[in-house]
């Protein structure tokens, strides 16, 4: 799970997520909605898949088609990251108190 931030920072990828939030779509249908080449859209989908925001599955009825599903559980990672960062700062700011004490006494 890496770079959810990076994955959702791009407007095209956010748009893809919004489309998928309404329901799964196949890669071609998604590509048709954008004013860019299919490979370019595929690349965005690949980045979303790599950050676990999107899951790709082969279509049961047509093996040439791949369906995309949004996996927003990955956003939990964002939340977990922020919690960790908050704990980091809380620890450091607590350490600042100790530092001030030490300076005062030295």
């Amino acid at each position, binding site marked *: 799970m890496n770079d959810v931030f990076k994955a959702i920072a791009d407007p095209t990828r956010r748009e893809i997520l919004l489309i998928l939030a309404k329901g799964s779509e196949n890669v071609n249908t998604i590509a048709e909605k954008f004013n860019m080449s299919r490979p370019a859209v595929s690349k965005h989908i690949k980045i979303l898949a790599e950050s676990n925001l999107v899951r790709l599955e082969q279509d049961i009825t047509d093996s040439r088609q791949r369906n995309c599903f949004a996996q*927003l559980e990955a956003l939990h990672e*964002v*939340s977990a990251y*922020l919690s960790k960062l*908050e704990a980091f700062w809380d620890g450091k700011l607590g350490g*600042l108190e100790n530092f*001030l004490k030490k*300076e005062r006494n030295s």
Partner: protein
Amino acid sequence: MNKSIKLTKIYDYPVEDVWRALTDRKALSEWLMPCDFEPTVGHKFRFRTKPYPGFDGVVNCEVLKISENELLSFSWSGGSLSNTVVTFKLTRLNDQTRLDFEHSGFEGWINSIIVRKILSNGWKNKILSIYLPKYLSNE
């Protein structure tokens, strides 16, 4: 709308002491992380700490605002974060100092937009119903 980390601390030391700890390179290197900070707007500096998988241990920063004994803010780019902003705001309380700390710019609003859209589309998913309200409540 921005999601941010906010912490408030009261220190039993005068504002000048806290300010020195925030803006002196040696002090900052000791209580926060080793760095080459200089108290000048536009100064680019780095914090270096132990790397771990997914983080090379370097945080690139630039001093954005500095107002003696009152406010220090710098950009913070490292790991998966880019151009987030760290702000220390000091308030004198007699012999004590109140610190209002904020780390902001996490693109959290993007999440919120996605989240709200998803919720409004009646997405039924246990995970979403547990995690996403947490997001919204932390705006």
